[in-house]
């Protein structure tokens, strides 16, 4: 595991990031959660977060979300979600091949990774972001705008990638 002090300072973590990532890391090390269960609970969390945003009256005005294409609209909704939840530092969301779009996260800037931040020593991935983004974007957009194609996150060097079908 990377040095905790370095991770905290370089990724600019708040206490909730540390709690969330280490909590899920512990559950994963006990064998209680895996990428499949994280996908399921992230969907539930997206519903709950939508209700939170609604209660706080901070949902974006859909008519005012900029973007000439569905990908651009989704990109701006992801920007809004990341601003609220402070999930990652550097990322991009852009068109990819075959009518898909790709979410690319600089792995060393992710603030909620149960492995990179929480130190989970387990095989495989434990990323809640793709399913959370898919479901929260669709909930906020009030239609199916994104459909997750990958079943979690794919690691390519230090970049974490998730592919989505962008629906009109």
């Amino acid at each position: 595991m990377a040095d905790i002090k370095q991770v905290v300072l370089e990724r600019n973590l708040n206490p909730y990031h540390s709690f969330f990532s280490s909590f899920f890391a512990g559950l994963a090390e006990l064998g209680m959660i895996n990428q499949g269960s994280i996908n399921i609970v992230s969907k539930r969390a997206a519903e709950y977060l939508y209700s939170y945003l609604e209660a706080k009256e901070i949902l974006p005005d859909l008519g005012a979300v900029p973007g000439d294409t569905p990908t651009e609209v989704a990109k701006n909704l992801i920007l809004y979600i990341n601003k609220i939840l402070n999930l990652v530092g550097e990322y991009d969301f852009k068109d990819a091949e075959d009518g898909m779009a790709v979410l690319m996260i600089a792995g060393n800037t992710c603030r909620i990774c149960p492995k990179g931040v929480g130190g989970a020593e387990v095989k495989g991935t434990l990323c809640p972001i793709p399913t959370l983004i898919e479901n929260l974007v669709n909930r906020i957009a009030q239609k199916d705008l994104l459909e997750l194609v990958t079943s979690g996150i794919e690691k390519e060097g230090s970049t974490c990638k998730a592919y989505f079908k962008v629906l009109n």
Partner: protein
Amino acid sequence: MAQTIAAQLDKTLNDFERNVPHVQATAVVSTDGLVIASRLPSDVEEDRIGAMGAAILSISTRSGRELERGEMVRVLIEGTEGYILIRSVGEYAILVALVEKEVRLGLLFYEAKKCIQLLREIL
């Protein structure tokens, strides 16, 4: 022409179900809890079977080691309406079977072992 991996997995699961009366559904899932292949009824949520099957096997394996029961051979959950059998298929995959109460457990275990050997060769 060689069969795709998906077709080979489906055939192996199908043969297992045919050889053991009362097997209702089967799935091969990754240790990450993601479904690789499945033969499940439409009312069973594939994602949940994958996630729960992998979590149950993982926690059972860990419990077995920590409580000094050795390596996990199988997990058999007995309910009033039937069984859930979970077995490891090598390092990266798991076999999950939903079985009716009337099954002959000896036959189930024997055929599951054969099925796992075949799945290992495919994967």
